[in-house]
């Protein structure tokens, strides 16, 4: 029995060692770095909470917090709405041809970087197809990613295009696991379609929706690839999320200590939102 335990330990040990070396130690090291200042020669010195006091007084930091949450909430609302609507349609259609599922997988399996390259061309302010469609419909063209005012909504739209189908497939899974008896009972009671949706289906779906929210929140709060490939935080810092700001502080200006403080803060935000949503999941569970 003792050797059996030892052997199990041996099977698990490589993964544990790797996790310690590549995940646990680096996280601890970032925490340590966030209390250090780097000189141009690469030496470090302890500056206590210096990076954090600098952060609190840094306008770019607060700008980053606001943009992060603006982009997060806008994207989350849009993709929950479109994802749920798409799932309800797919659920009602019953016999969907097999290729439909493959079709709806393709956006979120596309590398985000490729999605960025693709939309850069479509949304080009002067020659892009999007503005051609707008103007032929008699609408004014948009500067899209080149406009400080529209860059965040545009990024949210691109992300919504990419991830609504993912939300839809999660919600569809939830719909399919609802007991059919609740629908039958409602139908016999003569409840109208809308009433059934609002009073029965959506409340029963809440746990699934919260799960989808948790999964999307983790990605949306640390939104990186799409922004970095398209705008790098511009124009005029209008899409400089906390994550992009932290990255550029670290790897363009090589202020590794300050960048660490920013990343620790962002991680705490992600963790806090995840824990809050998890609590919500327990509340809405049935």
């Amino acid at each position, binding site marked *: 029995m003792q050797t059996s335990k030892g052997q199990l330990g041996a099977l698990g040990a490589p993964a544990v060692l790797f996790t310690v070396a*590549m995940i646990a130690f680096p996280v601890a090291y970032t925490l340590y770095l966030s209390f250090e200042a780097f000189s141009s020669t690469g030496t470090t010195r302890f500056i206590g909470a210096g990076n954090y006091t600098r952060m609190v007084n840094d306008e770019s930091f607060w700008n980053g917090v606001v943009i992060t949450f603006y982009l997060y909430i806008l994207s989350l609302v849009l993709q929950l709405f479109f994802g749920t609507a798409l799932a309800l*349609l797919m659920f009602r259609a019953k016999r969907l041809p097999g290729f439909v599922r493959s079709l709806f997988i*393709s956006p979120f399996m596309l590398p985000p970087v490729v999605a*960025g390259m*693709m939309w850069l061309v479509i949304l080009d302010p002067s020659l892009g197809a999007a503005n051609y469609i707008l103007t032929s419909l008699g609408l004014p063209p948009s500067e899209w990613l080149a406009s400080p005012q529209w860059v965040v909504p545009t990024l949210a739209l691109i992300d919504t295009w990419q991830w609504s189908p993912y939300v839809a497939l999660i919600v569809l899974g939830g719909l399919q696991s609802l007991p059919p008896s609740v629908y039958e009972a409602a139908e016999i009671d003569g409840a109208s379609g809308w009433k059934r949706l609002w009073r029965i289906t959506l409340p029963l779906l809440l746990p699934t929706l919260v799960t989808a929210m948790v999964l999307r929140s983790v990605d949306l709060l640390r939104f990186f690839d799409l922004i970095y490939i398209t705008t790098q935080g511009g124009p005029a810092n209008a899409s400089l999320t906390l994550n992009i700001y932290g990255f550029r502080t670290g790897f363009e200006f090589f202020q590794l200590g300050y960048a660490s403080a920013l990343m620790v803060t962002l991680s705490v935000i992600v963790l806090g939102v995840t824990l809050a949503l998890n609590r919500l999941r327990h509340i809405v569970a049935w």
Partner: protein
Amino acid sequence: MSSLANRPSDRLIAVLDVVLLVAAGIAVLAPVAWMVLSSFKQSYEVTAYPPTIFFQPTLDNYRSLSQTTPFLQFGINSLIVTIGSTALGMLLGAPAAFVVSWTRITWPAIVTLVARMAPGTLFLLPWYVMFRQFDMIGTYSALILTHAVITMPIVIWVLLPFFDNIPRSVFEAAQVDGCNPVRIFWRIALPLVVSGLAVSAILAFVFSWNYFLFALVLSNSDTKTLIAASFNFIGEGSTNWGGLMAAATLIALPPLALSFVVQRWLISGLTLGAVKG
């Protein structure tokens, strides 16, 4: 049911449903189709305004891609890093998933969720300092090690339910016969989860291939992956949209093709088991 469904208003709703579904399908597909179409356009046609839908297709963009950029070298780099990190993730993750399933000690698996939740830059900062110390920046090893942080948790969380589905009596019988855990893992458990191994390998491959951030900092011009090299293509893209779209199409091809293969398991894999697809 049937009498209700035949009311005219219900039939109208059914038609409306189909129309909306088709519209959603077009909205999803059109941008990707536009990317692929543009990659086959002549340079004067790709920036034509108004944009053209019908045109004489050409392979020029794909041909010039290999002449004007080290596309092939980037592709080989991507394959080395992706296959290396998938293999490493499988080697580390498969036995770990087996141990978690056997012992029900879940905290090591939960720790790997940190890798899924934390922003990549949180890891990249200390890695950068560490790899600089060991003179490893720009090496394949650094890229494979860091991408394994993406692949290992995927392998663990995808394989876990496959191991859990093996009846405990199978292991108990093997133990009575004098089999030790290592032997049970190799000879009994692994052969029973072959499909799980395939799914986890494919998902790990896709996510490693698509990953942008680590290679952005830790690679150099010789080891750059296709995804990290995207900036090179965009730089030229200002004048050469056809080439940019050809590059985008080629980069997207492996993950798209592979994810169709595993689409049945995709959702449960992507949600780390939180949702059964």
